[in-house]
């Protein structure tokens, strides 16, 4: 039985001169990368993802989607670290923990501020991105599904804003949530049940805050991450649409033979 090729490899030739430490480190790094890539073949996927053909004439407006995604990532990271200090307790825990973050925790006000202002930034970016796609006609065939997922992501982002608004649990949060839930109540037939679902009961109660917290930091982010992945996959698969002012023209003939 022949040995597998791996075991048949000749012994590595040892070089006499000691390698440059930088070269050695680079070599070690490459070895690790190669080891992983040999087992996962991930570089093929990365190459497919990163080195795509893009149409002529694309401009900075095409980066709004990436900007929105980075706003989401920023929200995710700052949110995870805020959760280390936040207590979703109605009986005087939530407000105090936010105050503690702002007043005592090292860089707390900064991280809290990034999360708070980043939320507005993300809403603005998502609308700019949507406007770009709309006015460039980039939602048309075959990219309708990308658009639909984008709309779902917009709704989820607004839901994140709604649920996140309650968490500081000051007067503004409380009354804004009362009003927001009651707006949901005004839907015919289903409204009263939607309101009860959001509050976790007929009145703003003990579990409303933890319910909003769970929706804000587990349910919707998970959904959004999955949908962003699918959104990105469709972008990779379908390519980027050309700007509308780019005139369609006959493709240049492929040069097959070169006369010398």
């Amino acid at each position, binding site marked *: 039985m022949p040995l597998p090729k791996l075991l048949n490899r000749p012994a590595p030739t040892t070089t006499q001169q000691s390698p440059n430490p930088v070269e050695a480190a680079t070599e070690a790094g490459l070895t690790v990368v190669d080891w992983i890539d040999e087992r996962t073949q991930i570089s093929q996927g990365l190459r497919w993802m990163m080195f795509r053909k893009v149409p002529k004439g694309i401009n900075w407006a095409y980066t709004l989607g990436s900007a929105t995604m980075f706003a989401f990532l920023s929200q995710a990271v700052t949110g995870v670290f805020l959760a280390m200090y936040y207590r979703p307790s109605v009986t005087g825990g939530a407000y105090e923990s936010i105050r503690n973050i702002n007043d005592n925790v090292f860089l707390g006000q900064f991280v809290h501020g990034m999360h708070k202002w980043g939320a507005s930034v993300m809403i603005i970016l998502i609308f700019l991105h949507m406007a770009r796609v709309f006015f460039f006609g980039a939602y048309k065939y075959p990219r309708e599904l990308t658009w639909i997922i984008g709309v779902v992501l917009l709704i989820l982002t607004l839901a994140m804003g709604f649920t996140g608004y309650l968490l500081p649990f000051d007067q503004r949060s409380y009354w804004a949530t009362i*009003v927001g839930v*009651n707006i949901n109540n*005004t839907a015919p037939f289903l409204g*009263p049940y939607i309101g009860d*679902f959001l509050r976790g009961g*007929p*009145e*703003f*109660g003990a579990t409303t805050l933890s319910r909003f917290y769970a929706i804000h930091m587990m349910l919707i982010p998970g959904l959004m991450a999955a949908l962003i992945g699918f959104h990105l996959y469709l972008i990779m698969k379908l390519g980027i649409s050309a700007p509308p002012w780019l005139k369609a023209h006959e493709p240049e003939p492929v040069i097959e033979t070169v006369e010398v």
Partner: protein
Amino acid sequence: MTVGLGVHGASHIRIHKQMPQDRYSKSSKYTVDRGLPGAFEGETVTRRRFMEAVTHGAGGIAAAAFGLPALGFAIGPIFKRQPFDWQIIGTPADFNETSYVTKVITIVPGIGEAGKSIAYVRARNPQIDLEPHDQWNNYIALSSRCMHLGCPVRYVQAAERFICPCHGGVYNFRGEVAGGPPVRPLDRFYTYVPPVGHPGHGYVYLGPRYSVNSELRRFSPRDPGEPLDGIGQYLYPARFDTAVRPSIANLPLPPTVPGTGS
């Protein structure tokens, strides 16, 4: 040229197998008749098909085993009645017929300030309170929750109006809509004054909230923004489980005054 030949040649290939006349007619239900490899006599479902169904079924049951309880867990509060205990808000001497007294009441017990609300209370005035009189409205207790979207209204004695700070809702002295976006009069609370001989006699009790339409007819408690006149009472159904009539079986006893203990 060979390529061209191949393309033309393809059009001459005869398809010998004819499609059945009715493509959707069922063939025999027995796998033996259908000529499937490894068929058993009397077998109607192939083993492969059966295994597929069992695997998918088992997966579905496993997913439902955690999915359904989680879903029920999340939407359970819709079906649950929240108990509302009677609470003492004062003595009859605290209230008069011409002005409202602000009382802090507990809507949801056990969660501190977030569970508190405000009731505006006055004694019933037969001259202006034309709705039917019974044991539940000797004292008129209005909820401070605006019936537009739930902001807290405040009572302004000079105008004898309730005014909402959020979107400009205005209510008259009886809590009826006098202007702005509210869709129905201010909600009310049942009030009760125990009869002579009851240990709670001499105190005014405040009970569950109820909603009223523009004629001050009683409805089970609804949320703000849900009209109760005309079609509104059908568009916004009552909760599945709502207390129709408050029970006065377990009135809390009034606080004992030091030095008078029996």
